[in-house]
């Protein structure tokens, strides 16, 4: 399919930057436009990585849940068991991968905040969460207003 998604996103950025941006003189609107273009560029690179990321994260999250399962309350442990039995969605089905990721992370959130976890569990939890954070494909792209004047802050949170 031509133009493919990446080509369309890149082309949109090019047109916004070369055709639209020079005509935008309002500073607020220009800041918004710059942010949108930067985000589209980020998406161009990140989009192909989202499905593989979700699939890999589902797998390692399920493994961590299996490790925690024996020390968790029975009801929660049972729900983990049910989750573990469900098959992993097809790698081509992004929506199903996303839904599966949400489901396992809901249970993960509950599990890692449960009492009775050993130091080794906490170590594994932090390692898992840190690794996931390092691999998340979609990143905020800062487009800072660096030199505003007249009582205006820089627009960063």
């Amino acid at each position, binding site marked *: 399919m031509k133009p493919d998604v990446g080509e369309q996103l890149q082309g949109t950025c090019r047109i916004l930057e070369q055709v639209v941006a020079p005509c935008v003189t309002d500073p607020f609107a220009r800041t918004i436009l710059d942010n949108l273009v930067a985000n589209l560029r980020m998406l161009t690179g990140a989009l192909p990585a989202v499905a593989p990321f979700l699939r890999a994260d589902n797998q390692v999250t399920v493994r961590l849940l299996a490790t925690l399962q024996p020390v968790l309350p029975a009801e929660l442990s049972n729900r983990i068991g049910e989750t573990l039995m469900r098959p992993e969605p097809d790698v081509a089905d992004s929506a199903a991968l996303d839904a599966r990721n949400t489901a396992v992370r809901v249970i993960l959130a509950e599990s*890692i905040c449960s009492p009775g976890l050993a130091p080794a569990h906490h170590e594994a939890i932090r390692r898992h969460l840190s690794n996931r*954070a390092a691999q998340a494909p979609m990143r905020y792209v800062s487009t800072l207003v660096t030199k505003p004047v007249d009582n205006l802050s820089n627009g960063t949170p």
Partner: protein
Amino acid sequence: MNAPAEQSLSCQPVGVDQPAMAVIEGLSNLIRARLPQARNIRLANLVRSAGGLSRENWRLDASWTDAQGEHSLEIILMRDASGTLLDTARDREFTVLAALAGSDVPAPRVHWVDANGCYLGAPSIVMDRMPGACDYLAPNSAAPLDSRIALARQFLWVLTRIHAFNWRGAQLGMHLGEPQGKPSSAELEHWDATYRRVQLEPHPELDYIHDWLSERAPESEAIVLVHGDFKPGNALVEAGRITAKLDWETAHLGDPLKDLGWITNPVRRREHQIADHWEREQIVNAYRLITGHAVDEHHLTWWNVFSNWKLAVIQLTAIAEFVQGRYHHVFQTPSWLYRPMFQLMDRLP
């Protein structure tokens, strides 16, 4: 007085788009309500500026006459945007700025507030336009090292002046509310409520860190006026001098380590610190020397973690507002904050 005719003439620099006209009309009505004796109100040179994620910023010139003669002001109007990251009240900000007038804290003089937006369509505050420029990375600008260190010290000095402000004498307690119990717990509870309100998907990282924070919430050494978002990006500097500390919308009474934890936060190092010259140790030592506060290292680290946790919640707020179609910047899940938080948590038992 034929104010509408004067207004339509004076707003020509921004054209006749509706937001600008609404600002002109609303501000005229606000001034008329606050200064009933004012005549010939003129609002000119209206420009909406970039910058500011939570509010629209309009700068303009105002003039009017009364029995005392002619008055003119260079002002800025800050109006809540339709989508906002911070749930704050303009009347609280107005009260803080009014209380700071005449103190040794450099801050803009406030003139009027439209607390519930009945004149301007959204809560708004009007204050003096201050001289100077804003550079959010001022301590790491291209300026010579000596002047950067001097400026960084000046920023800390301003912070200590805020913390030393006599809020009891100014009766700020009745407006801002004095913390009941530990400020750390109250802050965590407040931001957790925001987190639960804006959460669109599971964030095990934030839940886990929340529990860690909750179990270790420290006592406060003192209750002071806290700025709540202290950074060079919220200040104006002219010729090496800080002319104004801005953005008081998050000011409140609380633990001084909240501000100190914000500026010693490793994630925001480039905004506040100068490598090898003005780092956490130097900042904390200087703060201790100026204020006489002990500054417990573990407590400060707790506030470092909290700073990032709160920042993550603010970003989730931005995402929720964006998804609702009320906010025009695109943010992502704040995963970049998670690892630094875990690293800080490892410092504490």
